[in-house]
């Protein structure tokens, strides 16, 4: 699964970012403490995962073009 995620980095990043946006939006609408505390870290992890995958794809491309 990890290989597939790394192979399709941008697609995975898109999914992770989409999930993060939806979860962040849900945290704004919920008044339930437990739900909010569970949603917020999940959204943060999804967002960080998306940013990291995008960064990996940028670095890989730079390496392929021998910029690094």
């Amino acid at each position, binding site marked *: 699964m990890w290989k597939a995620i790394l192979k399709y980095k*941008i697609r995975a990043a898109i999914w992770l*970012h989409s999930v993060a946006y939806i979860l962040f*939006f849900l*945290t*704004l609408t919920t008044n339930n*403490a437990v739900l909010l505390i569970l949603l*917020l870290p999940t959204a943060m992890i999804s*967002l960080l995962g998306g*940013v990291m995958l995008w*960064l990996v794809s940028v670095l890989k491309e730079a390496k392929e073009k021998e910029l690094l």
Partner: protein
Amino acid sequence: MQLFLAILGLVGLTLIAVSFIVRRQGKSREWKLLAFLAFAVFPVLYAFGVVNEDMNSMKQVEFCGSCHIMTPYIASLTFDDDEPLSSVHYRNNYIPQETACYSCHTSYAMFGGVKAKVNGLRHVWVYLTNADKDTLALYEPYNNDNCLHCHSPSERFQNNKKHLKEEDFLVKVRSGEKSCLSAGCHDMGHYLETDESESDEEDW
């Protein structure tokens, strides 16, 4: 603010979709710029805005009251008596009413807010694991600094006859040696209606 953040979220999602379309069309330069905005800048800004809004909503009384166990404590805020500290502060607007729990139960020290959030995570763990779910107690004795933060500079507090009874009374209070909630002082934090309902049951 919520509407603004919701719109910002929609814009972010649209930006991701547009960047993906641009990538498929093979426009390398545009893709790089759009991807930078869509995958790094915009989501981080959006997350920052949402987290800030969430942190503010976590200070609200409704947030604390969303756990069933807190119901009697929330009810005690509007109890029509000036003896319990919670109701006298809440009803007379001595503390911001929207953030009453947070104002009195979060340390005013540098990392007070952070400590409150960590304790909040512990509450969720207890809630989800069902351990000691019905037991509610302070983690440590109530900190006088939370009271003194507002009361200490007040003349009414400094010149109160009871506070001047002992020579070093205020020194002891400030050092934490003597608690504001000691017996005979301000010993009723909350008036809990459950106590009354229990005694009512016995009467039946």
